[in-house]
């Protein structure tokens, strides 16, 4: 069991605006966990796997992942996370504009935990994020072995 405050949020989102809106709504939902924001896949992967405060080496985390990244596809990152023994239990929330069925199925096949389409209708988007915040507040992230 772990205190939910210690769960750090890793947001991989290339659009600064989206990132800001997501963060605002998470905060409005009352979630105060630390958010690490990355705008490209390479630095995000580096943080996830190699950084000393990163989830692979230090503590539980939750990943908010956008699929359209400038340097790689979000599904590649998803596959790497779910394929690694240290991070495979880390919850991944895919947040993207793609509402293509094939793409959604592919994400779930790769092990994505939640898939949220960013709607243009802001109210429903905000609501989705707030519900995600609720989800974050009750989520129990497994402790990494040996921690």
């Amino acid at each position, binding site marked *: 069991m772990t205190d939910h405050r210690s769960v750090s949020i890793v947001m991989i989102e290339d*659009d600064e605006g989206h990132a800001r*809106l997501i963060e605002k709504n998470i905060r409005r939902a009352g979630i105060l966990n630390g958010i690490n924001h990355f705008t490209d896949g390479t630095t995000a992967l580096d943080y996830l796997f190699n950084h000393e405060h990163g989830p692979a080496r230090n503590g539980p985390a939750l990943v908010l992942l956008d699929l*359209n990244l400038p340097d790689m596809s979000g599904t590649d990152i998803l596959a790497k996370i779910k394929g690694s023994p240290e991070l495979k239990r880390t919850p991944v929330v895919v947040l993207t504009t793609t509402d293509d069925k094939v793409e959604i199925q592919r994400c779930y096949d790769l092990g994505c935990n939640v898939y949220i389409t*960013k709607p243009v*209708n802001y109210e429903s988007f*905000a609501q989705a994020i707030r519900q995600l915040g609720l989800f974050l507040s009750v989520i129990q992230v497994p402790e990494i072995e040996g921690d």
Partner: protein
Amino acid sequence: MMGRVIRVFGGTQESIGRLLIACMAVGFAALLAAGGAAVWTTMRNQAHTDAVNHTYTVKLAIAQTRTLIEQGETARRGYLLTGDPDYRHNYAIAAAQTSPEIDSIAALTADNPVQRANVATLRPLVRNLVAQRGLSIALTAGGRANEAVERFVAEKVARRMYQIRALLMRMGDEESRLLAIRDAEQRAAVRAFYGVLAVAAVLLLMVALLSIATVLRYTRDLANSRDQLRGFADSLEEQVVERTTDLTRANEEVQRFAYIVSHDLRSPLVNVMGFTAELEAATATIAGLIDRAEAEAPGIVTEDMRLAAREDLPEAIGFIRTSTQKMDRLINAILKLSRQGRRVIAPEPLDTAALAKSIRGSLQHLLDDRGAEMIVEEPMVGIVSDRLAVEQILSNLVENAVKYLDPKRPGRIVLRGAREGMRAVFEVEDNGRGIAASDHSRIFDLFRRSGTQDQPGEGIGLAHVRALAYRLGGTIDVASELGRGSTFRVNLPLIYAETKSNRSERDPA
């Protein structure tokens, strides 16, 4: 490429063909002439043979005459010497035949003046001789044999006989001369005949060779052109396949483009909408502030501030919202269309009449609402195609018909389907407000609409219908008159055949 080949056919090939035909015509004409010549020489030959035979007949008659005269003389002398009635009898026979024989010679040689003269000389001599002989025979028969012998000696019969013999000899010679001439003529005619035959044989051979050459040439030409045609057909097919592949590739590219663009356009739109909402929230806060300021310190609030917080900002935000919402709908429409192109077509036998009735059922409340009726004309043609796509096409068209009815008259929509060759033609006919001729092709374009904009919609339906019709290997067109009504005609293959282009779209992109 085609044109060049045709020019080649029309140029050298044809002139060679003409030359061959001319040669053959000349050859056949020569052959005909040779045949005519052969007939002519044969006839000539026949005439010569007749002439030769005639000469022989004349010669025979002359010899016969001479024999008869000699026989008569011999019989007379025998009778004079012996008085034997057998001689007298023989003489009578010979004497009786002599004159007719001379007549026959005269008849046979009537065309020859030399012989006519000879016969004229012969006749008195013979007549004289016959008279002398008749006297001798009569005397002897009357028992006056001595007188008869005396007369015989006196008459110098031998000299007359010599004359007759010489004359007959001359006649014979005359005939021999004619015979020689006619023989030569006959031989010449036979030679000419053989010559003509030889020429004809050579001509025949040449014509035969020419004919064979012509036939061979034409056969070869035919084979060549057949091969060329087959080549064209093959290359045409290849070209069609190539073009279709190009088209498909272009189509796929456009779809991918539409997909990516519409997708990437949504991203900034999320921001616009999101921050507009933030602005709205902030505006509410500011409006609250203005309210408070007005209540607590009215002096610091100007009219501009009030307007900005209470009217300008909400109005601007409202416009941003409606615009982004509209943009979102348009982007979604493009997305939907591009997805339609990727959908896998699943052909199955369709009962189109049942399909049409189910469409009527689903639109019944709308029909009732507008006081319109919809008639499904039966029987309708059955097709093998994609159920969903056909249903979407027909229901879109019927829905449009219901939407754009003319309020001045009760709506009447007819849906019918008939077979035309290997195609099925479906018609959706209405008596609605109609479409101006200038808009007939425009209405099938995305986001384009026609007439009074009094109905909700984005101008997507018909673009969607046309994309579906194309996808099913069909076409769509419209016949309409403003104020009278419209008829949409969808032409689909009876049996959906998956083309290469459609197959390649199966691969998920």
